[in-house]
């Protein structure tokens, strides 16, 4: 039993690299996911993930399976959609969900068009499903840099970001940081999705962002607690998912997200806060 858990990591460098990559993504993308969830923007993550696709595809067409080109392409496409939809929301009558949906669907159809003109292509499957078992040094450095950048940005922006979620009117009244906070946050979503797609693919990257955050809701109340719980769930799910994919020869991205999904299911039924079982769990009565 112990061997089945440790031996793959002890024996194979690629498993250790995969685990390191997953820890990096969990530490960066999952806190961003917690804020997405708290702002009721969980589906925005999904939309942004689709928006990134054409950029990554163009990057691939131009330079092949190049880390740099696909990263830059994904960043450009994601930022363009984030900025355009944010701009439209702030200056026109259209609501954020509708303007974002319009732009990401345009972006996605462009991506599908680009992909289909090149016929079917095995490498392009990497874009969709990721290559967590083949992360090289430069990819790992990229993932860790993005995570560091994200954590620094979140630390600097923590108070305005919390206020932008809890009482946006007050933030606008006391400081000019409202727009900066909003767009920086969207930028963090984009760079973390780009980071995630190298390992897990564009479709699964958003999973590691949102699913652990949703599961954490049943374990913690405070923002700090939510972030810690979500990161822990993401890292444990990554480890289990990698082992399952190793032992059963399954694709690792979906395996990781499915384990996270299992954690979500367990949290939803058995978690101490607001879950299905919460009303019948014995709770300590709080005085005063």
């Amino acid at each position, binding site marked *: 039993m112990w061997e089945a858990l440790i031996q793959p990591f002890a024996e194979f460098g690629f498993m250790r690299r995969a685990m390191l990559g997953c820890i990096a993504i969990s530490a960066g993308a999952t806190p961003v996911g917690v804020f997405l969830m*708290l702002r009721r923007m969980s589906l925005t993550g999904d939309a942004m993930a689709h928006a990134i696709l054409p950029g990554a595809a163009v990057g691939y067409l131009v330079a092949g399976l190049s880390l740099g080109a696909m990263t830059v392409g994904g960043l450009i496409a994601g930022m363009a959609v984030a900025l355009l939809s944010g701009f439209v929301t702030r200056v026109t009558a259209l609501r954020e969900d509708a303007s974002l949906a319009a732009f990401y669907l345009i972006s996605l159809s462009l991506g599908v068009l680009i992909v289909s003109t090149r016929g079917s292509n095995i490498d392009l499957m990497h874009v969709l499903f990721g290559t967590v078992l083949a992360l090289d040094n430069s990819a790992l450095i990229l993932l860790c840099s993005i995570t560091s950048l994200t954590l620094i940005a979140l630390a*600097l*922006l923590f*108070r*305005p970001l*919390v*206020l932008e*979620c*809890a*009482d*946006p*009117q*007050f933030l*606008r*009244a*006391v*400081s000019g*940081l409202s727009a900066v906070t909003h767009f920086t946050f969207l930028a963090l979503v984009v760079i973390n999705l780009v980071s995630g797609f190298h390992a897990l693919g564009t479709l699964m990257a958003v999973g590691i962002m949102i699913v652990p955050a949703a599961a954490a809701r049943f374990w913690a*109340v*405070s*923002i700090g607690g*939510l972030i810690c719980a979500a990161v822990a769930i993401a890292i444990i799910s990554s480890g289990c998912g990698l082992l399952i994919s190793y032992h059963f020869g399954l694709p690792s991205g979906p395996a990781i997200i499915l384990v996270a999904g299992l954690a979500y299911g367990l949290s939803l039924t058995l978690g101490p806060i607001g879950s299905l079982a919460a009303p019948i769990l014995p709770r300590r009565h709080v005085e*005063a």
Partner: protein
Amino acid sequence: MTYAVAFQELTLGYDRHPAVRRLDGEVADGSLTAIVGPNGAGKSTLLKGMTGALRPLAGQVDFGTCTRNDIAYLPQQSDIDRLFPITVVDLVAVGLWSEIGGFFGLSAAHRARVDDAISAVGLTGFESRPIGSLSGGQIQRALFARLLLQDASLVLLDEPFTAIDAKTMADLLGVVRRWHGEGRTVITVLHDVETVRAYFPETLILARDLVAHGPTAEVLTAANQFRARQMCEACVGPPHDCGRDAS
């Protein structure tokens, strides 16, 4: 006498439809003023104009003794996300924003001031409760504590006592009195005429156009209130139809 804020031919509105028209007047520095008027009279619009959230269609708002950053504003409908997991302390402490900014932490002195503000509104013991677990009146108390910390020379309150029990209202009126005693200028929109008579020395009656402005005893007459109601009833429909022949 110096003024805290003055209006000159001030016209405010939405989509070029005026909701407050050609308002003139000044609010004295350190005065305690009630704004009264029927629903839709433009009271909230006038406060938004003072905070700068709404740009005048014509005319201007002049600040005498204070600057725009010196304003603390409590909106009629706050868009606070009550389900967001922050505590009473978190909500109140951002009142210190102008001192601590977006990044720096609270010093021990700041913390003591936050505790003082919370106790001044009678919320001691609720510090670490999530805001989602507070009643409407308790939220309003917390928002007053935040206003206290903002330490503003001009305080704007938009219907702060609506849907609040008598005890909470009495406590919060005590806070308003305290501001007045400290020489701050306070402008409050409210409906209850008895409260206005008891607590507010100055009154401004608004019905899109100015009806009257001055000492409460002289201004808050049955005749003026009747006139305000009539002026607003005359303008059913969009604001731009308002009293076209009256003007």
